[in-house]
């Protein structure tokens, strides 16, 4: 890389040339090690700590690294701050390719070292930046303090200073650690060791048992005393709008089929009356009633539910629950509608995980905010929204197989949680 790497070949044969090479080498290395310009790149929490480290309190400028370049072509250092998802991975590789050499990478935080909090049961996160690009320095922490990042920077500096033009910088290779399950590996190694130890110790143990037939350990673990704390009752408060009973009564008058979640046999009115004041009322709506009810709730002057808090779904064995959370801005009450969508079991069992299993009319013409929420449900559960203007996957790639929030979802890269 660069002219300087040819210097030894040309200058070494000349008497005294070695010293010239060494001198140039020293100067260039000194410059490289002390002028590290990072790339402005950050995805999540660690990016904030990276920003903090360049701010007045910690001031990365003391190291000469405050020149955060937005364009990768002018950067030397790639601080991988934040979780790397599979969708982001190609972008990261491209950024790395665009940085001119000599270039270095710091993996900041647990996510970029190993996947961090997202190792197990996760289909979206790349377990460690090493899988994508060669990483020079690892800074553990979640997120690491700015001081820890500086320590990483100094570690990198030490590493750069060791380079010479006789052992020049070269692009490393990424290392595949994506399927590494540290927990199970450690357990496995230990189990093997234990087996050996058991064999070795069998005699000694038997002997010990003979010698001390009623041996009792003197070790008594001391439990930490917990502070004595009082039990405090919770006092739910209700504010704004109609109470749950009123809401239910009014709704029941218009749509007689509504009910609520209950496991007791007592009449629905009593169940509704027993709901604590700060729990919003969640009614089970018939599939046919869903769209008319949402329309009614939005336009009725007594309800005026003009604000869509959220829309989400829950996967059960044979049906999905589609929960629509509504709120009235003016009056202040909330109402959750729960529609049960029967899964379409006419689809062949092999095709079920990859096909849309239920269908429901969209409410995005009533609430424009529902558009993205319905796309999310489509993406995560595979529920079709009839009449949706732009039904695409929202969080996952368009060629992603399966719908992750279904209970039977499997993914080749997903590792089950061991404990």
């Amino acid at each position, binding site marked *: *890389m*660069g*002219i*300087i790497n040819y210097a030894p070949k040309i200058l070494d044969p000349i008497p005294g040339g070695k010293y010239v090479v060494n001198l140039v080498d020293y*100067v*260039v290395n*000194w*410059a*490289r090690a*002390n*002028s590290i*310009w990072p790339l402005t790149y950050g995805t999540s929490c660690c990016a904030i700590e990276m920003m903090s480290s360049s*701010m*007045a*309190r910690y*001031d990365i*400028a*003391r*190291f*000469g690294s*405050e*020149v955060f*370049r*937005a*364009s990768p*072509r*002018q950067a*030397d250092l790639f601080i991988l701050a934040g979780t790397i998802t599979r969708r982001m991975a190609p972008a990261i590789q491209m950024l790395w390719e665009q940085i*001119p*050499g*000599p270039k270095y990478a710091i993996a900041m935080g647990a996510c970029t070292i190993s996947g961090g909090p997202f190792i197990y049961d996760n289909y979206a996160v790349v377990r460690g930046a090493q899988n994508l690009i060669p990483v020079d320095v690892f800074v553990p922490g979640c997120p690491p303090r700015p001081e820890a990042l500086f320590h990483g920077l100094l570690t990198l500096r030490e590493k750069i200073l060791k380079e010479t033009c006789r052992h020049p910088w070269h692009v490393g290779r990424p290392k595949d650690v994506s399927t590494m399950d540290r927990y199970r590996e450690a357990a496995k190694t230990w189990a093997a060791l234990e087996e050996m130890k058991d064999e070795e110790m069998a005699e000694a143990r038997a002997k010990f048992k003979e010698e001390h037939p009623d041996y009792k350990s003197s070790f008594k673990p001391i439990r930490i005393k917990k502070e004595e704390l009082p039990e405090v009752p919770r006092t739910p408060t209700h504010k704004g709008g109609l109470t749950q009973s009123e809401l239910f009564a009014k709704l029941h008058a218009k749509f007689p089929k509504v009910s609520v979640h209950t496991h007791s046999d007592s009449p629905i009115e009593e169940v509704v009356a027993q709901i604590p004041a700060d729990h919003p009322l969640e009614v089970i709506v018939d599939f046919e009633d869903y769209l008319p009810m949402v329309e009614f709730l939005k336009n009725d002057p007594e309800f005026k539910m003009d604000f869509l808090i959220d829309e989400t779904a829950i996967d059960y064995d044979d049906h999905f629950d589609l929960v629509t959370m509504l709120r009235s801005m003016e009056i202040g009450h909330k109402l959750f509608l729960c529609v049960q969508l029967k899964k379409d079991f006419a689809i062949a069992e092999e095709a079920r995980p990859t096909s849309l299993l239920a269908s429901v009319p969209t409410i995005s013409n009533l609430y424009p905010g529902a558009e993205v929420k319905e796309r999310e449900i489509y993406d995560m559960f595979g529920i079709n929204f009839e009449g949706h203007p732009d039904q695409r996957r929202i969080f996952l790639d368009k060629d992603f197989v399966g719908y992750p929030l279904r209970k039977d979802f499997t993914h080749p890269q997903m590792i089950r949680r061991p404990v």
Partner: protein
Amino acid sequence: MYVPSVTHPIGDFVREWVPKLSAYLPEQLQSQTLDSIVAFLVNAVICIIAVCAVNIGSAPILIYMERKVCAHVQCRLGPMRLGWHGTLQTIADVIKMLFKEVYAPSGADKLMFYLAPLIVLIAPFMVAALIPFDKNLVVSDVSMGIPLIIAVNGFGVLGILLGGWSSNNKYSLLGALRSGAQMISYEISFAMILLFVVMISGSTNLMTITQSQAGTIADWFIFKIPVLGFIGFILFFISSTAEMNRAPFDIAEAEQELTGGYHTEYNGTPFAMFYLAEYIALVTNSALATTCFLGGFHAPCIGVAAVDNYLTMVPGVVWFFAKVFFMIWCYMMVRWTFVRPRVDQLMDFEWKFLLPVNLLLLGAGAAYIVISG
């Protein structure tokens, strides 16, 4: 043969010594023409070296200064660890950039891509040759100084346009187009202000302009004409900031919007050239401001002989650079204080505010000259 005069002490020295040295040559070779040509060439080389030294030497100092000034505005320390208070930081940066890998993006027009940073560098170098640093210290004392500066300054935009266009990147192109529109617009008010200076000094020669500010502080153009001079100075300050593409008028770079504008795709040495050109332009523009408004190399005499004697003992070049660095500091404070206007607002500002005020200023200046005789 016409040999342009080079009026600096070294020039005189060279002209004096070349004939003396040529006396040692064989007689067939001795001629006056040859002497003057050699003297001219030697002078030219010395001048080029001097201009390069001043410009390139000042760039790292300025970058260091900028980093320190911005750090102190922002309640932090800035470079601290390399050398005493980080003094060697920018030198390390420059060395590092020289040894970085250089490549052009795919689809780029390679020739234009590498030519652009050179073109950007030319303009400030040429302006630096015209600035009188001291009574006898001027590389090229041309009589059409101001028109030449205006002409040369317009050259810089070409490099930026070329760089942005040849990068084959939409952000670069947007940045370049913004920069083109901006620099061409602000060129007008820039020229107008210089015209105002020409009007009150009665000359386009920079040395004459400086000399006509001789005397006390009150004779500097910024104070010579009450209020108008100061307004002119502020207008010059604004339009030269825009000319240099410096924040708050750095819409061509606009890191938050265009990730770097026209130099998004540049790396290594070509990027270093853009980077240096920005600071060299800062020096030349500050020098121009000093020459035109702050009395050039004249000491800030206050009219009290006891003090003035001491002030004038300091060589003019020191005063000159003191003023230049004060100007640079002003540019930096402005840069680190203000936010960036939008591209259309920038144009509005030029055409709806700066230009009318400039015209009014020219008229008022003319009226003042006529009235005061």
